[in-house]
């Protein structure tokens, strides 16, 4: 009996690391190796006859001139506005996600009852349609003689040119595109809040609003932050939403600038430099998120 427990323990000890293998492989093959490749391109010191960087695979031969150039252009030069714009759009789009997504997630988790499956299905339904198609639908709605302007016209509002470099349109499209990413993790978190805590709060004579503010909101804080992080990461680097609903230098985000260098010309070292910077910025926020979740899990213990 005792031996068997030992065997079982040993098997378990081998099993858990084995389960981590696919993930580890995935991480190495699809994250570490590409990331190293980005660095090899960003820190390349030589270009070939086509003007493309020759990747420097050996870290000893890394040159940082191009990266320094990208960095200074980002801090004080021509890309400064691009970074500020990217940050502003991300914050604005996240604000819309919170304003729209929180009530929806709350409703689904707490109040939808029997219809919860249906509501979830409806939230996920847009994902059945290709992202580009959904964005092109916006173009149809928002074009100069589109339905939005026609509707506004009924109320005597002059047509607005939504699609020519309008920052509001870009933010709206970003928020729309990534909203399901926001709702689902938040829903999961709200769904796990113990019903009894809410009942206890009510039993002690606290109203709905205060129960929400003092019980639900603090308990969903981590879920909220998770949802924001998951939404913000792809959103910050997005470029095609912008390309479809704006296409103007007025609304260029970092992703568009990266696309210019990587896909429309040979200067991939500049693009790779921007990718590294973007990763650094996002990692900073990720680190904050990790600290936050660690602290939260320590508190629950």
């Amino acid at each position, binding site marked *: *009996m005792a031996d*068997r427990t030992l065997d079982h323990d040993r098997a378990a000890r081998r099993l*858990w690391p084995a389960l981590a293998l696919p*993930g580890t492989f*995935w*991480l190495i093959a*699809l*994250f570490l190796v*590409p*990331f190293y*490749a*980005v660095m090899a*391109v960003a820190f390349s010191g030589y*270009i*070939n*006859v*086509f*003007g*493309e960087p*020759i*990747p420097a695979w050996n870290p000893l031969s890394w040159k940082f001139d191009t990266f320094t150039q990208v960095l200074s252009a980002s801090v004080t030069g*021509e*890309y400064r*506005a691009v970074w500020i*714009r990217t940050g502003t759009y991300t914050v604005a789009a996240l604000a819309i996600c919170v304003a729209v997504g929180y009530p929806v997630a709350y409703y689904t988790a707490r109040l939808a009852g029997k219809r919860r499956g249906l509501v979830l299905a409806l939230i996920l339904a847009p994902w059945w349609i290709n992202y580009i198609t959904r964005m092109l639908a916006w173009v149809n709605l928002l*074009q100069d003689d589109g339905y939005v302007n026609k509707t506004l016209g009924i109320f005597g509002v002059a047509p607005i040119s939504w699609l*020519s*470099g309008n920052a509001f349109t870009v933010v709206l499209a970003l928020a729309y595109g990534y909203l399901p990413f926001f709702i689902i*993790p938040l829903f*999961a978190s709200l769904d796990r809040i113990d019903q009894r805590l809410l009942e206890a709060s009510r039993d002690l004579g606290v109203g709905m609003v205060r129960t929400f503010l003092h019980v639900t909101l603090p308990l969903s804080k*981590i879920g909220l932050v*998770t949802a924001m*992080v*998951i939404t913000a*990461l*792809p959103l910050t680097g997005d470029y095609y939403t912008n390309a479809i609903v704006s*296409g*103007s*230098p*007025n609304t*260029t985000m970092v992703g*568009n*600038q990266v696309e*210019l260098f*990587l*896909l*429309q*010309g*040979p*200067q*991939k070292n*500049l*693009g790779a430099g921007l*990718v590294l910077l973007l*990763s650094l910025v*996002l*990692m900073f926020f990720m680190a904050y*998120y*990790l600290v936050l979740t660690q602290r939260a*899990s320590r508190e629950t213990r």
Partner: protein
Amino acid sequence: MNFEGFDPAGRRRPRPQLSRRRLLQGTVWLGAGVGAAPLLGACGGDNPAASSGNSAPYPLARPDRPVKLPIKDSNPPIDDGLDPETGGVFKILNYDAYMAPGIMKAFGAEYDVDVQVTPYTNYDEMLSKIRAPGQSFDLVFPGPGQMSKMVFTDLIQPLNHSYIPNLENLWPEYQDPWYDKGAQYTVPYTIYTTGVVYRADRVSSVPENGYDLIWDEKYAGKIYILDDMWEAIGMSMLRNGLTTNINTSDASLVQKATDSLIELIDSVNIKANINAYTEVPEGKATIHQGWSGDVIAGQYYLPKGETPEVLGYWVPEESSKRVTGNDCIAIPKSAKKPMLAHTLINDLLDNDISLRNFGWNGYQPPINKLSAEYLIDQGYIPKNLGSAVVVPDDFKTGITTYEVAPSTEALWRQNWSKFKAGG
């Protein structure tokens, strides 16, 4: 027996569990990496012929300094007297909507091949696609601006003229062009001028310097330039009278021209793409820097009920002030069906087939028979768009983009990225 599930409390022995939060954390980390994945493709082993400094390791052709491209023993033309290959695929690397589908279909049927087109939006993309490891293409459409570089790096192969008798249908100057003396590697495909495509029904009067239309705040929000740094910055140079050398390596001129484009971002909300042939007819754009072929093809993209009279095209009156260009046809070194490629080249220089192709894409081939008068008489070009016809003088005296040194190219790119960043 030891059944874990029987433990009522279930937490006597804590197990390392992958909590949802951990999973999410992991996913987030991975998410940061996925964005980098496409880069891997860009990092294949490459020709380490590093270059720097002012000169190029290959000859830079100029209209007044023509270049006869070298023929290397390692990259010879195909032999005489071969039969065209049949069966399988025939792969074309070309701009989108640049060759009539009917011609490709008929060609495919005749030689029992499946004709496939891989599209690109600019020459940079063409270069990266043709160089992708393991890729092969049978036909490609470069411009004079990449010619020497492509020969130097063995991307295209010399032509065997014995398979291209229709070469004599071309304007004499194009049988022996300055960028490829003797047409050893390429034959011309289309010729065009770069000007301003506009909606004649919305633009009341065209100023003498038609480029001013692009700076006209009356049409703000409806003005586009070409998404091509040479065309856009070069146009700004001409408009502002900075220089007529639209290939200049003078940093201050390139910067001034770019600054003038950057002003357009705030003043007219400028946008950049290469779709004048649809944007202007459909009314999305009122003013669009564009190619002559755009406005001729544009008549086929008009909404129902509108006639070509709503379209207009401005280029300078004098040939010597016009920006002209041409695209060529070449056979990649990687071609699997080089003989069949020669056959298609010869077809595209045929009087009837080239006319059919022009009737579809709007881009004029420099074929003797297809003169301006002929094309207008035959109804291919509406009278009001006569300015879109390219004449031999445009090629002889016009302003054109040519191949420049890598340092000049880098200078232009730096300025262009500044414009793209919003100034």
